[in-house]
């Protein structure tokens, strides 16, 4: 089933990596609070934000994602005490590098979302989707084979 029909308004595909303990729970809370956010935000559950490998982020762009967001516990609240601190350094450097290579900087984002911040999760996703919509489809970091081809 095609995700984006021809002619339909551009709906950015957003991959959200969420840590199991805070942000995924925050996303759940957004759900149980019936807070709406765009349908093309898809969450991938990881144990901790420090599990997010830059490879995964590039992979998402390769396969056609228009934006990638990583959510973790607030600094100091990591279930594993320090995972998000490492993740924070890694992402700061990676995002800076992507920016340096001319990938639109708005396409990557980190947000700390606690299990209690369902509203923050939904708001973040809404805002992020808006930002990405304004940027349009990700062309600078896509793999034509994955995006355009029949096979």
């Amino acid at each position, binding site marked *: 089933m095609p995700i984006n029909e021809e002619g339909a308004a551009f709906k950015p595909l957003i991959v959200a990596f969420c840590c199991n303990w805070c942000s995924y729970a925050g996303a*759940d809370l957004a759900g149980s609070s*019936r807070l709406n956010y765009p349908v093309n935000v898809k*969450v991938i559950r990881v*144990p901790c934000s420090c599990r997010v490998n*830059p490879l*995964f982020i590039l992979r998402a762009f390769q*396969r056609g*994602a228009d934006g990638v967001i990583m959510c973790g516990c607030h600094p100091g609240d990591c*279930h594993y005490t*320090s995972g998000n601190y490492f993740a924070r350094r890694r992402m700061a450097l990676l995002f800076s590098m992507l920016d340096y290579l001319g990938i639109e900087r708005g396409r990557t984002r980190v947000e700390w979302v606690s299990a209690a911040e369902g509203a923050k999760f939904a708001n973040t996703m809404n805002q992020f989707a808006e930002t990405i919509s304004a940027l349009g489809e990700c062309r600078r970091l896509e793999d034509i084979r994955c995006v355009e081809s029949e096979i």
Partner: protein
Amino acid sequence: MQKIGVFVCWCGSNIAATVDVEAVAQASLSEPGVVFSTNYQYMCSEGGQSAIRNAIAEHGLTGIVVCACSPRMHEATFRKTAAVAGLNPYMVEIANIREQCSWIHRDKEEGTKKAIILARAAVAKLNRNVPLIAGESQVIKRALVIGGGIAGIQTALDVADAGYEVDIVEKTPTIGGKMAMLDKTFPTLDCAACILTPKMVDASAHEKISLFTYSEVESVSGFVGNFTVNIRKKARGVNSDLCTGCGVCIEKCPSKKAKSEFNQGLCNRSAIYIPFAQAIPNVPVIDRESCIKFQTGKCGVCEKVCTAKAIDYAQEDEIITRQYGAIVLATGFKPISLESYDEFQYNQCPDVITSLEFERICNAAGPTKGKVLRPSDHEPPKTVVFVQCVGSRATVECGKTYCSKICCMYTAKHAMLLREKYPDTEVYVFYIDVRTPGKSFDEFYRRAVEEYGVHYIKGMVGKVAEEDGRLIVQGSDLIADKQVIIEADMVVLAAAIEPDPTARSLGTMFTASMDTNDFFTEAHPKLRPVESPTAGIYLSGLCQGPKDIPDTVAQAGAAASKVIGLLSKDKLVGNPCVAACNEPLCNGCSTCELVCPYGAITYEEHLVVDHGVRETRRVSCVNEAICQGCGACTVTCPSGAMDLKGFTNLQIMAEVDAICR
């Protein structure tokens, strides 16, 4: 290749109203590996679960995807269901189509599309799953408590009362810690010794408790349930088994110039000594630095006078190896050094003392037999100034940024005791804030002010100077907004407290993480306050942060209950979603070790066989019993040797691919 069953839950109308569950089930059939799919009203109900079990049996499924509510809700349920049907519980994946789909979207067509994609991602991940088996390890039913202060004693007693063996390792010659030095305790003013010494006796007499005083932890290995610890028993010079504790040696010892540590150096002790009368064990120690026999070889008086023949100059340090299931850190605190606080003249004026020294001066067993006398001339002081927050809540380099928590209350206690014993003594207290958030604390403080007439001055002391045998205290009164100068006979400084310096090396040894102030960090600041992030290591007392005696005892009990909980298990079942090293890929570079918050990674020389090439080299090894599965190591590993079971690189990338397809 997997044979996957997909089970789509309606969750009544919770899901079915926004997601066409039949369409999701149908669509998933075209995904690789899927051989069966169905939908059901409530997958988590017995009916739903039995449908899963039947399908597993009927279709020989190797894995199942349940499209339902959040995995945080029912992942455990469906894992159990799978296990009952003979499937490995880790061959279950959940597609969260309720919280992250049906509940947030209103358009059924869109919701259905998204649910299909989420199901697809779960299938894609499951195609890369392998059965995981949780490791098991034995639990050694003995606990080690490091530190024999009130925290350590209380933890040990609680654990021992539950029927488990406990060893206490204490670096000084006696247990009792700082509390033994105190005179009275706030807010009830009962005598510290009266409530502590019975506990010390209980601990020494308890059949489940072994005391290792004058001993230190040398090294540790192992992991939760299975620690091996080497304890260094320092040579006492006295055979504990023979000594009767008669005290003749102490009396006859010709060397009496050593400063008494217990009395904060306010008086002297002999070279062979016990720290205080109620010390446990009641066995003296020879201080080799001040012993004439050890320094010059001539003397031997104690040996001559000892009828029990307990003196043993040749005694050497002894290393004892013991095994433990759990370890409690109760290393306590010490007041900070006031060396660099020149403004208070602590080093220069003998009558400027710390609060702990004041405790000893007040104490009936102390250097002044309980009479409050100035150290310089042994005269009773007429005016005493207490200074709060010396080094606490500091903004300067040499101080501590935190509040030491206990000073407000003990200063109120000291002021009150002084006024009670010596009503004609004027007592001033300089404070920044008075913090009394404890049961009966504020009442206590108000009594000091209102009933005992202690002068509380809000402000800091800028300078203390000695002039003609008196101490000129210059301070500011922020409320009156003026400078005050008080001529005092004695100044008592409420020095900030800091973790005992031995904590740092222990922290490294146990990979127990510490904050910037060297207090041990807890596994979770709110929810797991007595556990260290390293499994099997628990925290008791001030080593975790400043606290008073009631809090210390409460935390000691809490730590004990955690220890008991651990020791009561015969086996520990690990989390199988832990890191694993692919040895042929490992470079032995150590970067993973550096980011592991649990110290679960060590390095060993292994024979690695890679495509027929054999080489012995340094590779990283994950201790599955310690690893908690955060995955920090997997990203720091450049070669991809380190991977996280249950969340492997390939699994997550498969999800990414499926979502973006």
